[in-house]
């Protein structure tokens, strides 16, 4: 919590995308991802159009391209797998630049790359235009059980605290000359994990007592009820509907 009240994925702004109610944005992103995934991979142009649509959203949200691209790096470890596909997959082969590549593998790699990148980009946009707390409220508005949302909000709220605790333990280990180099050091690390569990659990008990002493009886009070007007819904759903048109064209063409 020392790091301010916004998650580092969030990018503060006042654009029209920022102003949308969170649940409309969640629904829009979910629908968009479903549409993208169900597009045939042969319709290469469709994915270009999807990317264009996302670029439009990013422009409307005033999220700079550099920021978006940097966040997309999260995908890299998974791309590595896709790069392997053309070399290993069987079937018809083509020669590209002197390398014999599998056609099927190339399609598979393209499929993974295109859809994965679009999905990640959409979620990066969502996370950078919506505050965490709002996201949770949005999930609640989308009929997620309140208890689950409470658990999730506690996790988000204390995630940094617990991670920090872990970091302090690591510093403590290292300042005593310990360096985990191999499996023989697992015992020490596992003891740290055990200690971390005990600390987390005990912190949970303290949090509960603090809540009870402030009148908590099993449900959180809803302070800011967010509702969405029809205009807001239609604005948010413009993205998936445009994508749906593209997808249908992709199937028919």
């Amino acid at each position: 919590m020392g790091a301010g009240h916004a998650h580092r994925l969030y990018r503060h702004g006042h654009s029209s995308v920022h102003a949308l109610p969170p649940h409309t944005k969640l629904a829009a992103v979910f629908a968009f991802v479903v549409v993208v995934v169900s597009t045939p991979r042969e319709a290469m142009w469709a994915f270009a159009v999807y990317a264009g649509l996302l670029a439009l959203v990013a422009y409307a949200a005033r999220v700079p391209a550099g920021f978006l691209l940097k966040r997309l790096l999260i995908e890299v470890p998974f791309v590595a797998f896709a790069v392997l596909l053309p070399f290993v997959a069987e079937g018809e082969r083509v020669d590209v630049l002197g390398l014999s590549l599998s056609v099927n593998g190339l399609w598979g790699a393209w499929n993974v790359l295109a859809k994965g990148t679009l999905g990640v980009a959409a979620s990066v946009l969502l996370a950078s235009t919506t505050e965490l707390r709002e996201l949770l409220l949005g999930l609640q508005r989308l009929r997620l059980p309140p208890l689950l949302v409470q658990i999730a909000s506690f996790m988000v709220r204390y995630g940094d605290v617990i991670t920090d605790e872990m970091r302090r333990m690591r510093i403590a280990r290292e300042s005593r000359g310990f360096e985990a180099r191999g499996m023989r050091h697992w015992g020490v690390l596992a003891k740290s994990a055990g200690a971390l569990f005990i600390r987390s659990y005990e912190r949970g008990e303290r949090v509960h007592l603090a809540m009870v002493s402030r009148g908590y009886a099993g449900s959180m009070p809803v302070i800011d009820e967010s509702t969405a007007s029809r205009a807001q819904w239609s604005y948010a759903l413009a993205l998936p509907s445009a994508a749906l048109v593209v997808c249908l064209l992709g199937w028919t063409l």
Partner: protein
Amino acid sequence: MSAAVGLVAAGAVAVSLRGARRELDERTAPLAGLVAAFIFAVQMLNFPVAAGTSGHLLGGALAAILVGPYTGVLCVSVVLLMQAVLFADGGLTALGVNITDMAIVTTVVAYALFRGLVKVLPRTRRSVTAASFVAALVSVPASAVVFTLLYAIGGTTDVSIGKVATAMVGVHVLIGIGEAVITALTVGAVVAVRPDLVYGARGLQRKLRLRVNGELVDAPDSPGAPEPVPAAARSHRKVWISGLAASLVLAGFVSFYASANPDGLEKVATDQGMDEKAEEHAISDSPLADYGVKDVDDARLSGGLAGVIGVGVTVVAGTGVFWAVRRRRSEDTDDATSPSGTSV
């Protein structure tokens, strides 16, 4: 298909919400939230395997044993949910599948096994550690099996499922060994300090006290502090040996299988690589690529193709490390650990 699994997942989460409320009543939200934060954090704790490679905990079995099955399912589900929503929405479409096999299957299998073993084994701390080892070891391949099943139902190609399963389970047993060692050590550490916090050891605690009252001979011995330490050390050695044996047998079997039947497996690989439609969520899912839940996802991707590659690489790497460590062990004879649990 993924919608149907999503319904299953939603149902299971609903059941565990109710169950957790029974376990913890209105303490559910803060406690489960904090435990979820713990799982989230502990997944970032890297356990170095050998030069360069490292594994980390997946946490399903650990959560089940430490806080009980219902709360465990909830915590892991929430972690998955937050990862899917925050870090890659591609995961949203596969969230049902993810929750079903990573949260529900691992936790339930682990907990059922753990309870059974704890009931059978003598009521000591050591047997809690041993039971959590076995539970974690089985839970990971079990989730691989379920994933294969889901894939078999949902996949469009009629791939020979047996072969996919072999590859999947092969990789996951290797991962499972690492998971099992870490889980057992962690549970052992918690049991040593706060046995009352370990949900799976609650019965144990009461029994121990009774025995102390009944037999005066045991009384000074069992509550003594030094007991857990030799327990940890002993299970260490045994764990290594059994893990090594299992991985060697398995590696031998799988590689034999692969070499005996290259066409079949590679066909599976191609087909699987081909209709990535189902799997590619798992990729874009990449919850925390920084922190890496990539063990699972990698292994998942490895549905077929990477299964073959993965097993091959793991076997080669494992054997290499094994030789290296063996050579070193002959020099310093103390507890050089075998490289069996390479959860790469």
